[in-house]
């Protein structure tokens, strides 16, 4: 057992830092550091992706032959931590982290040759079509229908919670091609050109007033069968692969540590309840200390998972445990941010941060009152309530773990 980074890993960290210092413009840095939610705005995310593409660093987790970096898991962890610390916006996960692995794992050679390079370059910006009105936690009950019509599937139905569908030119969908005994059977994984006739995207406005999610209506959309990933009717296998990737793909601790650093710095600049600086306020300091202690435990948990995975071991409960603990801590830290913001945390000032989509509520265009950190705090607090709901609610994750434990 060894908890410290090796000399090679430290050298890698320095290389990453040098790259970030050289390539991140002030504007990109601000777009990552001042996000009002966990989502970057598509414009900045694509600009940053173009820079990464030049360097070959868009998709660290992909196999080298498809454009991956060949980094170890430890190197990927270091990359993620340094990227967040530097304030770089995240690359949209829908393509590189979700659809990409599905195509790599289950796609045809033609699909790999066409889609993967365009995913890396950012020419294709992806969205997801999974959930439906009646199919959230119970995703397998999905009803969006695809009828067989020779070389094509004809898709009719509706999808919900599609992040950035309004900015996407391609979408990966789960559609029903057959109704069989088990709901998981008869589902097909399909890639749809969002410019196809019959596709309509309707904005969903969040409680923070932002249009990041969308509803997608599909009305007799003709999709060539060559866009089916895997076999027709075998979409659940592809989706499970992809969902596991979404759940296990991220390490939470690096981002949470940066969040706590930011909050502590801000708390050194504002007044606390007892007259001194907030950072010297005993109750606040205790809450920050507890969060740091919890993140330290999570970090080692993530290191252990990383070490297991490097050795080819994938304990089944880990992605769910990580998702629950990571999102719960993420949410608690937004509470600390809001507490630090004090009274200015009540003001609605999305213009002080960088929203990941159009803002639909009344707000000012230019400046803002109070500190920027305080203006962003309520946006983050409200937005990140979604973290315990998306990608499998935390209740569903606990059910999964209970089953794995044999309960």
């Amino acid at each position: 057992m060894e908890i410290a980074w090796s000399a090679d890993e430290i050298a890698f960290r320095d290389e990453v830092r040098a790259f970030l210092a050289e390539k991140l413009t002030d504007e990109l840095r601000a777009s990552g550091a001042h996000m009002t939610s966990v989502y970057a705005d598509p414009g900045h995310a694509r600009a940053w992706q173009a820079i990464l593409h030049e360097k070959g660093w868009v998709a660290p987790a992909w196999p080298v032959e498809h454009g991956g970096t060949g980094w170890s898991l430890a190197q990927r962890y270091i990359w993620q931590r340094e990227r967040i610390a530097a304030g770089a916006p995240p690359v949209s996960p829908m393509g590189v982290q979700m659809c990409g692995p599905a195509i790599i794992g289950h796609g045809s050679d033609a699909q790999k040759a066409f889609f993967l390079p365009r995913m890396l370059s950012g020419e294709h910006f992806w969205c997801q079509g999974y959930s439906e009105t009646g199919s959230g936690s119970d995703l397998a009950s999905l009803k969006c229908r695809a009828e067989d019509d020779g070389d094509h599937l004809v898709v009719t139905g509706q999808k919900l919670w599609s992040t950035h569908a309004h900015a996407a030119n391609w979408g990966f969908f789960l559609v029903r091609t057959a109704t069989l005994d088990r709901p998981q059977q008869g589902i097909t994984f399909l890639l749809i050109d969002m410019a196809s006739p019959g596709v309509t995207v309707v904005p969903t406005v969040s409680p923070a007033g932002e249009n990041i999610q969308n509803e997608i209506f599909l009305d007799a959309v003709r999709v060539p069968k060559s866009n089916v990933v895997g076999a027709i009717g075998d979409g659940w296998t592809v989706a499970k692969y992809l969902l596991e990737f979404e759940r296990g793909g991220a390490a939470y601790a690096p981002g949470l540590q940066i969040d706590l650093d930011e909050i502590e710095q801000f708390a050194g600049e504002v007044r606390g309840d007892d007259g001194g600086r907030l950072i010297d306020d005993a109750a606040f300091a205790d809450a920050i200390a507890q969060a740091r202690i919890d993140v330290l435990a999570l970090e080692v948990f993530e290191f252990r998972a990383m070490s297991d995975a490097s050795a080819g071991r994938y304990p089944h409960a880990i992605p769910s445990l990580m998702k629950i603990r990571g999102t719960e801590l993420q949410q608690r830290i937004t509470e600390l941010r809001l507490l630090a913001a004090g009274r200015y945390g009540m003001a609605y000032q999305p213009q002080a941060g960088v929203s990941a989509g159009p803002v639909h509520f009344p707000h000012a265009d230019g400046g803002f009152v109070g500190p920027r950190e305080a203006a962003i705090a309520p946006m983050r607090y409200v937005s990140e309530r979604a973290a315990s709901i998306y990608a499998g609610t935390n209740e569903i994750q606990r059910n999964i773990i209970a089953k794995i434990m044999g309960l």
Partner: protein
Amino acid sequence: MDFSFTDDQRQLRDALRGYLERENSFSARTASARSASGWSESLWRGLADDLGILGVGVAETAGGAGGNAIDMMVASEELGANLLVEPFLETSVIGAAALGAAGGREAELAAIVSGDMRCAFAWAEAESRFDPAAPATAATRTAAGWRLDGRKAVVTAAPYATHLLVTARDGDEPALFLVGADAAGLSLRGYPMIDGRRAADAVFDAVSLPEAALLLRGEEATERLCDIATAMLGAEALGVMRVMLDDTISFTKERRQFGQPIAGFQVLQHRMVDMYMQLELATSAVYRAVLSLDAAPAERARAVSAMKVTVAGACRFVGQNAIQLHGGMGMTDEVRVSHYFRRATVIESEFGSADWHRRRFAALSRAA
């Protein structure tokens, strides 16, 4: 001991509930909040003319209903359940209490009853955190009366107020002044709040006021006013939480996944039981606070701070879980529960966070 409501109080509640359901439906309320002005003058006039509710706490000698704190609590809870954006708390609770305590203010109290006066309570400053007793805004004596200099932060309802109730320091003593929103030297910078109401930052630059602008003086008078405001905010929170719990119960009974209503899952049942428990305990804490408003200052302050800690915790628990149990729908502007959640979030820290009130409670307990 008796915790039942009088017939008059039940009638007040039913009349208010019926009127608000008709005149301020959720969509009407949201349209008002998002209009250019951010409020509805016709609703405000209706609350005065049709219901007479704006004078619920104003003495009968000044044309009000002469109601007590419990009447005001009943009204506040219903207005909370309706998610009212108009400044009832600022005007009919805080304004009426300040003018009533000042004495000899019949004309201004009558303007509250008639709906002609709308108040905003300018107590907080960027550097005051949650402490209302130590404003940096300075009141200086002049030949004609007073001069005010200073800045106030996030003054709720200021953009549509006719008057500001401003805390300022006269030497070592806090005092409260009534300032017309059109006073020379007063400038406001307005913006929305996360709960859909409006607020402003206010700058007082050599604002001259007549002698009569001084309403209250001294730490106890200021604290008492804040305690009344906090208690009624707590009552409002009960209405906000009641709707979130009711909506969550209805939603989980209707929403089907895995072939059954999700309300059938035990883990969700227990969550809703805990929400209910939090609401009942918050209600109890509000009753103690409201019934202590006329008690000795330390007892009153302890009851109010205890209430604010309990209510803030309940607002957080009930609000977060109402969103969670609504699933993705809870994360949309479309469902009303997400609006109630935002209001509950503002209530948590309005007039002091749980941490601030816990500390105040501890200090008062040590002194006792």
